[in-house]
């Protein structure tokens, strides 16, 4: 008895008790089974490797060759800041691949929780710019730990129609401007915010951990706090607030400005006279990665020109693969504020310098206090 038949017979009241019971029993069984079905269908996904990455990078476009090879994307897990990610991994969260940045490399490697890359398994490795993986603390015994993937800047995205520069150069001062009290936004992770404040304070990154400089930066951030509408790790919130005019300026990465421009919002990604914060992030493989082969496939996918196309074209970030830039003309790159030569961008800004764990903990603690109003 198919279901249409059953419904028709119920309507016509032409049904006996036994048929009705049988129909309802079948329906009940179907309902009881339904939670099990997605699990059966989802069983394949559990066999994929896990990529623990920044919020916003958890998209299939970032891992094109992995999908081509394995039929579906890896499992994504996201974090709002790399310090949070490291704490979770230290606490026993095992992922295949994670996504630290240059500033954290020595500390990430020192945890002993990551394995060096087997570059023979990475088909795109020969195209990776050596300057990007030859970073402080990354190469031990000739083996790199982090495969560089994306590079870019942390700066200010501001509304050109709402922020009046008064003829002056763009400056980090926009985020300290009393005129825009309550209409400024900040990234909540100290890994960005503290360093940008240090740039504005004129602190040399190699001296960022001295007591004097910590006090100097903290004082500057305390001064800024009453002006800030929201501190958030969620770049989408900042983008929406900038689009609506709730915020006139916010600390963001390159991608927010590109996204907003794409929506026709009059914004600019500032090139502050004090220098933007520049960074290189990449992929590291957990030493106990449950899928070491697939983990390398993720890393290889991140290095592929397909991932580069998404990073550059959709987000305005740089990519580590030289060939990715061949997909864009010089004019397109200039419009995105990018260059084929990463040194041009990275050296023009202030490149993050690795710090000790003590500094990270103390800095994050202080920044949390400041955000809470103390």
């Amino acid at each position, binding site marked *: 008895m198919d279901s249409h038949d059953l419904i028709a017979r119920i309507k016509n009241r032409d049904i006996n008790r036994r048929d009705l019971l049988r129909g309802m029993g079948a329906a009940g069984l179907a309902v009881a089974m339904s939670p099990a079905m997605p699990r059966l269908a989802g069983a394949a996904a559990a066999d994929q490797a896990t990529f623990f990455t920044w919020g916003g990078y958890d998209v299939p476009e970032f891992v094109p060759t992995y999908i081509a090879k394995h039929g579906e994307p890896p499992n994504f897990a996201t974090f709002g800041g790399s310090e*949070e990610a490291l*704490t*979770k991994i230290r606490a026993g969260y095992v992922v295949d691949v994670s996504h630290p940045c240059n500033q954290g490399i020595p500390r990430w490697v020192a945890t002993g929780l990551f394995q060096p890359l087997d570059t023979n398994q990475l088909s795109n490795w020969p195209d990776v710019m050596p300057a990007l993986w030859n970073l402080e603390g990354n190469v031990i015994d000739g083996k790199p730990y982090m495969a560089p993937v994306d590079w870019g800047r942390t700066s200010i995205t501001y509304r050109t129609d709402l922020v009046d520069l008064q003829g002056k150069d763009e400056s980090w001062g926009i985020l300290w401007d009393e005129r825009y009290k309550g209409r400024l936004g900040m990234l909540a992770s100290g890994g960005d915010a503290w360093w940008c404040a240090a740039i504005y304070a004129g602190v040399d990154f190699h001296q960022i951990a001295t007591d004097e400089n910590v006090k100097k930066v903290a004082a500057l951030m305390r001064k800024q706090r009453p002006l800030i509408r*929201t501190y958030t790790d969620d770049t989408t919130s900042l983008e929406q607030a900038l689009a609506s*005019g709730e915020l006139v300026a916010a600390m963001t990465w390159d991608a927010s400005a590109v996204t907003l421009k794409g929506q026709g919002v009059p914004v600019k990604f500032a090139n502050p006279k004090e220098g933007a914060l520049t960074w290189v992030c990449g992929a590291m493989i957990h030493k106990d990665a449950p899928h070491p082969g697939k983990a390398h496939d993720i890393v290889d996918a991140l290095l592929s020109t397909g991932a580069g196309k998404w990073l550059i074209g959709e987000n305005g970030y740089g990519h580590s693969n030289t060939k990715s830039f061949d997909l864009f003309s010089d004019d397109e790159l200039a419009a995105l504020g990018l260059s084929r030569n990463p040194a041009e961008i990275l050296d023009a800004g202030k490149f993050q310098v690795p710090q000790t*764990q003590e500094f990270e*903990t103390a800095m994050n603690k202080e920044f949390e206090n400041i955000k*809470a109003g*103390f």
Partner: protein
Amino acid sequence: MTAPPVKLHKSWNSRLRALFIRSEAVRGYTLLSPTLIVMAFAMCAPFAILVTMSFWTQHAFEIDTAFTLRNYQAAIDGPIYKALLIRSLWISGTCAIVTVLVSYPMAYYVAFHVHRRKLVWIILMTLPFWTSYLLRVFSWKVILGYNGAINSGLKSLGLIEQPLEFLLYSPTAVVITLAHAWAAFAILPIYVSLEKIDRSLLEAAADLGDGPVVSFLRVTLPLSLPGVIAASLLIFIPTVGDYITPTLVGGPDGIMIANMIQVQFGRVNDWPMGAALAVCMMVVVALISLIYIWVTRKMTERIA
């Protein structure tokens, strides 16, 4: 035909059975055992770990397990923790009051004025709770936002020129969101206590000349107090520890003690301090709840 042999030694099995039948306590604990086991593993054990950890110290990524009260000292000395705790208590207290005030009329209406299909009404009231908590918080973000429903509405009515900025990213936003998120937990206990009220008492009050307002204040309200007390505690206790709502709608001035606890386990990476703060929060909430229960019991005794 011979008599069956008398067993001199009862087997263990039958002795246990006898104990089971004779002792009400054993039967009770056996029936409770699934819950007890879950409680022991899912609540008592983690709580013991939390308390133990709060006496340790974190150095970078290593944890020093020597006993120390330093975390508690820091929790008591640090003005930030006190301020955040007081703010959390204030927000949750306000939220409990607001929720009870809003939920009472709804519960009252269903208990006294709905005579058919009460269950449907109750289900309809809990309908918003069928979606995820996170979605509800996000929808409040949309409603309270700068270009949100309220601001656009007021603007199109010409009542305001500029959007009201205090709606979102403020303690007010946290109170509004929590009050909505927890409404079902207030409606149901209040409804149950109202439903239990013997209607003849109301008739008697009317017969003796009480108007509707006086009979509500002298009969209905006092008799429904147990529901109101239960509802306010049910809302107050869990909301003190909420951290999703303040993260999403609180803004810098709306963050609560649980946010501070969360960052200790996250980027600040000081688990023992986070544990100590969590224990402090639990102790304070427990004390306040005990005082509240004691005061309200005295009050209801006086009314009775």
